[in-house]
């Protein structure tokens, strides 16, 4: 057991020594800014994978750079918990608007690149009534999905019935794509998440 114990201990230490970077922004409306400068080391925008959005446009992750983004992964045919992830994100969107925060972008990445084609994602966005000025839904190949899931800490696995087992995690990215908050519980605390977003704008909540 010694090897295993020492190993798990080192993992534990590793876990606590790698805090998510939190950066303060002096700019009150970073989403309006043209993103500039080198990306911070922990930015998920270092992933160079290519995606297609619900309008069929080929885009890189870095197109999200410049303002806070609320991010989740799932798949649209999911009948269980996944609809709640999107519902929670929509609640965050509503609450942020109520609090008069500047525009926040919402990004949903499908795990199911075969079924969730850009057309299907578009239909889903319409069915759910997503405000597509704020929302982007992404379809990418297996490698793109695998790498993004790895960077976000999302576990997933295709099950025999054609669905996916996956972690339900909502992440908040700052303007440079660094993870500043994650809610691993689908009973997301909307108020808490909106406070985190407000901090990114340095705007007090009303």
């Amino acid at each position, binding site marked *: *057991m010694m*090897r295993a114990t*020492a190993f798990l201990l080192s993992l534990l230490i590793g876990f606590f020594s790698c805090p998510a970077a939190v950066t303060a922004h002096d700019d009150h409306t970073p989403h309006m800014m043209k993103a500039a400068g080198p990306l911070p080391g*922990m930015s998920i925008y270092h992933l160079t994978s290519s995606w297609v959005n619900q309008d069929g446009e080929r885009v890189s992750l870095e197109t999200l750079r410049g303002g806070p983004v609320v991010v989740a992964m799932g798949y649209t045919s999911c009948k269980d*918990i996944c609809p709640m992830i999107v519902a929670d994100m929509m609640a965050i969107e509503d609450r942020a608007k109520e609090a008069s925060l500047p525009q926040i972008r919402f990004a949903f990445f499908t795990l199911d690149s075969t079924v969730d084609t850009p057309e299907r994602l578009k239909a889903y966005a319409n069915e759910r009534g997503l405000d597509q000025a704020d929302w982007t839904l992404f379809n990418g190949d297996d490698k793109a999905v695998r790498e993004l899931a*790895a960077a976000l800490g999302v*576990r997933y696995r295709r*099950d025999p019935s054609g669905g996916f087992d996956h972690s339900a*995690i909502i992440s908040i990215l700052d303007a440079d794509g660094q993870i500043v908050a994650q809610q691993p519980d689908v*009973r997301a605390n909307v108020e808490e998440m909106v406070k985190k977003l407000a901090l990114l704008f340095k705007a007090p909540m009303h």
Partner: protein
Amino acid sequence: MSEETRPRTWTVAVAVTGVIFVTMTATALAVLVSSPMVRIPAGDFVSFFREGPGKGKAGVAIIPQRIPAFRLDAFPVTNGQFLDFVREHPQWRRSQVKPLFADHHYLANWLGDLRLSDDAAASQPVTNVSWFAAEAYCEARGLRLPTTDQWEYALADQGRRQNEIEQRSLAWFSTPNPGRLGAVGRGEPNGYGVYDLVGLVWEWTLDHNSFMTGSEQRNTSSKDDAAFCGSGSIGVSDAANYPAFMRYAMRSSLKANYAVENVGFRCEGDE
């Protein structure tokens, strides 16, 4: 034999010896630089974490899954091979890698960006490499990391010497980390010709973090239940298989940018 032909014979002998020597050296280098891969034939496999067809339908008979044939590196990737890779791909050098892709333990036992600790390290398995780095290495060779199922299928070796594998695993787990790892390929290969699956390093798999264990497994009564959206049912096929538990738990505990001293990898490719 005339006086004239003797030097010519000598020259020919030298040339032949030279050719043999060069050929032998080239072969040795080829073994070191390129990685021999072995073919793993298709077969049926029952994953340690077996999956049922859907929620609330546990107890349904488990159908083994078919693993198509593939090629697998006979040895774990060595420091020497990884050094060649970072020479070619500067973004994977220790001083240049992005923290998103590898934490600060990345290649920690090297002396510098392009310096191994010593000559012996070249034939030892590379460790302190993250999943992202391992994936990039395999991709540069036109390969991938093996899936967990492929790796476990290779270890299962069509049932050959499984008791021995289990005993060796247990002995390995209970041994403190050696100061240095041995060279790859020292032990005996398994039935497929694969070396060092057990006893040298743990290995990354493509989907290392796709299995939910413990509190993350859905259908538990814990609060964490909701952190995980599950549409299948999961159980284990052999609860007494402690080494398998250890392997799955270890893989599952890793994050993709962790560079850990006991974890290396090998690559997989299409047949």
